[in-house]
């Protein structure tokens, strides 16, 4: 059980990283980005392209650091993967969402468009990489045996550290910098942001980049924790939304706790039922929250 809690915290940290991007985007563009899971997948595959193809072609083959199954090449690959996924998110905005936004369509139409974007992204991944699953490294996966029957892989420690470093980094950016505050202002009151001289479209572009980059990082971490598969992100979509709703939609702090709770509950549920029911667990949590406390467990009055 303790072991399931630990692996739940690791999974929960990955969910959190995706969920904070999702909730930030929701606040700025006002629709649920159903392509968020597939942006995670895209990021994971671009990192795979870097570690398996591009860096080796340049003569850089990854050698594991200490007890880890990967080394610097893997870590450096985060940057191009995050950058390219961020740019892909901006491209989707320019090609699809912005056009719809200019026509002032309802948020539900944008969310459905995002679903279409998700299908396109996943199809491209199937075409380029096929349906097989991949591992980032062939290196041995060491396992530490800790008290209380907890097993932990050194890789998972890295997953935890990277996920939380990024989440803390994003929060610091939102709380401390002028641009971060302007993003929060825009989420709070778009009309007033505009009359204050905040350039809305530029901020939307920036938000897509941040959301895409954070999703990519979450995808890579998920790939490190398990494996890289075309539907890895799609299957995360339900837990991501459940985490966001649990925390109160648009509430950035709520998403933190929501992500962790989702991860732990999903993992612990596998002690009682087949792991294939994990998505159902997320779904049940989401429905329960919507029925009982639609503003989320941390939501105050402002949840619109």
């Amino acid at each position, binding site marked *: 059980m303790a072991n399931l809690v630990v692996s739940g915290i690791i999974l929960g940290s990955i969910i959190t990283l995706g969920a904070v991007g999702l909730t930030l985007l929701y606040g700025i563009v006002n629709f649920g980005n159903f392509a968020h899971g597939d942006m995670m997948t895209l990021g994971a595959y671009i990192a795979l392209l870097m570690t398996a193809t591009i860096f080796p072609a340049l003569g850089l083959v990854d050698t594991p650091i200490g007890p880890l199954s990967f080394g610097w090449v893997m870590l450096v690959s985060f940057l191009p993967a995050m950058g390219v996924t961020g740019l892909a998110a901006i491209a989707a905005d320019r090609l699809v969402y912005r056009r719809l936004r200019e026509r002032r369509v309802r948020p539900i139409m944008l969310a459905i468009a995002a679903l279409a974007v998700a299908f396109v992204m996943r199809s491209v991944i199937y075409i380029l990489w096929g349906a097989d699953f991949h591992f980032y490294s062939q290196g041995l996966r060491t396992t530490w045996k800790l008290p209380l029957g907890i097993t932990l892989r050194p890789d998972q420690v890295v997953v935890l550290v990277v996920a939380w470093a990024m989440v803390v980094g994003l929060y610091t950016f939102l709380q401390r910098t002028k641009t971060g505050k302007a993003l*929060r202002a825009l989420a*709070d*009151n778009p009309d007033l942001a505009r*009359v*204050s*001289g*905040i350039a809305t479209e530029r901020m939307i572009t920036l938000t897509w980049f941040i959301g895409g980059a954070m999703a990519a990082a979450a995808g890579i971490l998920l790939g490190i924790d398990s494996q890289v598969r075309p539907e890895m992100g799609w299957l995360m979509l339900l837990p991501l939304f459940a985490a966001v709703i649990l925390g109160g939609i648009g509430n950035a702090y709520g998403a933190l706790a929501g992500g962790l709770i989702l991860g732990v509950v999903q993992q612990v549920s596998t002690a009682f039922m087949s792991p294939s029911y994990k998505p159902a667990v997320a779904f049940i949590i989401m429905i329960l929250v919507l029925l009982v406390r639609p503003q989320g467990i941390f939501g105050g009055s402002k949840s619109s």
Partner: protein
Amino acid sequence: MTENGSGRLLEVADVVSGYGEMEILHGVTLHVDRGEIVSLIGPNGAGKSTVIKTIFGLVPAWSGQVVFDGEPITALPPEQIVRRGISYVPQVENIFPSLTVEENLEMGAYLREDDFRPQMERIYQMFPEIADRRRTPAGKLSGGMRQMVAFGRAMMLEPQMLLLDEPSAGLAPLVVELIFETVVNINRQAGVTILMVEQNARKALEISHRGYVLVDGRNRVEGTGRELLANEEIGRLFLGG
């Protein structure tokens, strides 16, 4: 400033505008001189807010002209107009509720590249109540204090002119008093020219140099605050007496 701070600052000439297909303003003409407080009064739905929004570029003018400080601003978007020295305080939703008081003021200074701390301190001196609540989310404040945050945000760019849309709406009588005093202070001490829409027509005219009465998307009467207060028809229609 030209001519010792006197002269025409804002000129609205025969402006027509509306929403979608619906024409709301059928030709509004008004002007505000430097240093003045001018009130725009009129019945509900007359188009008062629309006049302010059209001046500020939030609603595009279909025809007519808006000139600020000698230059036409008719076709400019709000983010350009605000750079020229006009700030706007909307009628509703005029703060960032989840941002702290201080962050609200910082967002008011978003376009400033220079050090805005001195102006922030001046605003805190003008509104000591909100100075004590710098770290409180603005949405948690009382109505009167929110209005001060809204004024403060608009003042951060040290504008030449403020457009105020019903600053006293929905506030308790004592607070209304305070808001009008504040408007006078901003005008006298900070030297800011003010165009203000008000439901509280009598009070607004009492502190105004001049006023306009807007009915059905047209300005019907113009006069000094005193003249309008003395006008019997206006008294009957808008001043409740």
